[in-house]
């Protein structure tokens, strides 16, 4: 008999929980958050940063760029504290990162989100307390969040179009993608695939390199062995150097065209192979968008209004830098060749350039 009691309790609790959850929304728990929030005020402002993927050169440089711009503002007394939540975490962990920042009373949050949709609820918590949220690197669906970044599809189209033009109609290529199912990977690959389809380029096979140089190299070696007649390879940043190493190991740099990456390690190999006729392209995907977003945050916190005509569906889409090809390689390489191999070619808008996005 008592066993049934236990089961009944579970059932009752479930019903109770259901009851709780179905309660109609009344208040948004909006009394907390300390000094956080409050649209236009004089500052100084506290800025929070949430990044849940560490250990990649891209993210490291992203944080360093934010810190650099923050320190300039701090010297002027515009901001006072930068709270960094920077550790590997899943979506649940990133929700906690954002809550920590809210409880810390930050005025704005700059986030490199793990997911385009799963952080919506916690973004609403922040926005409900008057905190401004800026998503970089990957766009999120939440309307009130300002997405600041490049157009990933356009980024992919640029190198895909170049590759299609170089191998010509009927050309045979392989593809080394990032992580299957990842939103950024899907956006890029769908855009690139459309270019290849319309240009009549034949895609022999698609492999995954997990945005990792070693994995990319392995995948490319396998593809080279399977499809010896390929003329080009389209790949993404973070693994293009690995792909190029595989092509070099097969002694094919003279006849295989590689869509590369705008990173120093890759460009160093490119500079050495260029004399032998190797052709490539690098499109900059700047880690500096985080620092650019900080400029937007400061201006909005100071009460400035965005010029709606400069936004795309309410978001900020940054112009792509001119792509690096053999034509302008020497000039671009001269600017960055003193940086370490881990350096990602970067661009941060200046405070004045960001000002152009604002009315008045």
């Amino acid at each position, binding site marked *: 008999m008592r*066993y049934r009691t*236990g089961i009944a309790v579970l059932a009752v609790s479930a019903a109770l929980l259901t009851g709780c959850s179905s309660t109609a929304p009344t208040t948004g728990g909006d009394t907390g*958050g300390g000094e956080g929030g409050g649209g236009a005020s004089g500052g100084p402002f506290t800025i929070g940063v949430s990044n849940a993927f560490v250990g990649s050169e891209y993210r490291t440089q992203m944080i360093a760029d934010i810190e650099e711009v923050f320190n300039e503002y701090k010297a002027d007394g515009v901001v006072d504290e930068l709270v*960094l939540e920077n550790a590997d975490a*899943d979506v649940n962990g990133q*929700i906690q990162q954002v809550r920590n920042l809210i409880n*810390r009373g930050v005025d704005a949050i700059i986030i490199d989100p793990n997911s385009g*949709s799963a952080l*919506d609820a916690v973004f609403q918590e922040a926005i409900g307390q008057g905190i401004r949220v800026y998503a970089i690197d990957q766009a999120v669906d939440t309307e009130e969040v300002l997405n600041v970044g490049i157009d990933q599809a356009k980024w992919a189209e640029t190198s895909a179009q170049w590759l299609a033009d170089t191998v010509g109609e009927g050309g045979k290529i392989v593809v080394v993608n990032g992580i299957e199912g990842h939103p950024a990977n899907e956006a890029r690959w769908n855009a690139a695939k459309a270019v290849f389809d319309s240009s009549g380029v034949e895609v022999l096979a698609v492999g995954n390199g997990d945005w990792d140089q070693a994995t990319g190299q392995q995948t490319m070696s396998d593809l080279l062995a399977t499809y010896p007649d390929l003329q080009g390879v389209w790949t993404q940043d973070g693994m293009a150097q690995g792909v190029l190493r595989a092509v070099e190991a097969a002694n094919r740099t003279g006849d295989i065209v590689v869509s590369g990456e705008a990173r120093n390690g890759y460009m160093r190999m490119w500079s050495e192979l260029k004399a032998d006729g190797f052709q490539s392209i690098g499109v900059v995907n700047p880690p500096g968008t985080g620092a650019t977003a900080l400029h937007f945050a400061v201006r909005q916190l100071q009460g400035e209004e965005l010029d709606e005509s400069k936004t795309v569906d309410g978001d900020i889409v940054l112009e792509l830098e001119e792509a690096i090809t053999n034509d302008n390689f020497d000039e671009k390489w001269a600017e960055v060749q003193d940086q370490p191999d881990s350096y990602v070619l970067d661009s941060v808008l200046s405070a004045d350039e960001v000002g152009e996005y604002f009315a008045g």
Partner: protein
Amino acid sequence: MTLGVDNRAASSRAVAWIRRVQVASVVTWGLLAAVVLVNAMVQPTFFTLYSITSTFATFVPLVFAAVAQAIVVIGGGLDLSIGTIVALSSVVALKVMNGSDALIGVGFLAALATGAACGLVNGLLTAVVRLQPLIVTFATASVFGGITLVVLPSPGGAVPPAMTQGFRLAFAGIPVPVWCVLVAVLIWLVLSRTKFLRHVYAVGGDAQAAYASLVPVVAVRILTFVTAGALAGLAAMGVLANTGSGDPFIGADVALDSIAAVVLGGIALRGGRGGAIGAIAGAIILALVTNVLFFLNVPTTFRELASGLVIIAALALSVLTTRKGVVR
């Protein structure tokens, strides 16, 4: 015979109760008080409604997982698959509800049923096939995790809005996540008064003696895992309400965190002693330690290290004092 068994059960229950209250509890509640005090000192906003709501919302899933783990551990087992049961139950409930407010109740039943079914697998393998719980649940953790990926291959999907919004509301002046923790406490209080839980204590304390006293050991062991699985299903609903979306990889830390919570709660890993209220306190301690480290401005690079050290210290304190109590 019957009388003798009842007397012995009664007296062992009394002894267990005294041990529970006297030794383990003092340390657990002391640690909880200390961590709450420190947190309140370093975080000026600690007692605001938002802070309480968000802090509780973060650890609701772990609280239910800790109660589940507590029951298994008291019964002399260990469940390493709790984390993936949470993941599987959450994606199944997500698919069943399909973002519709009207289906939230069905979603709860789906999560409970999925969790209970996983528990049944664990229970049959340990009690009937007689494999070690540690090995069984280590293996089934991968199995459940694999099924989760089949159900939901990549993160996505939307939880019914009423569930995510309701989770952030206050009900009778008390935030809903706090109510959820109170529900976990209530579930335990009622369960602990059932004959089933008395049998769990008996089996965990000494399975052979329990068998000799006509306790249906096999059935009790199976039901232990089934109950734990169902509770993991409730934890899954907490995860969904908190994130508002599905993720097949959610809950990776839950299994080990729940074990840490159980030990912090003064439940002996050899079984037969302790109570889930302690484990709930343990779960709260674990969550607040992370909080404190954040507000102490420990850089994120060192926070994991610091968090690990604090937990080891707390566990050591908890276990050492309990051991002294047993000798006495």
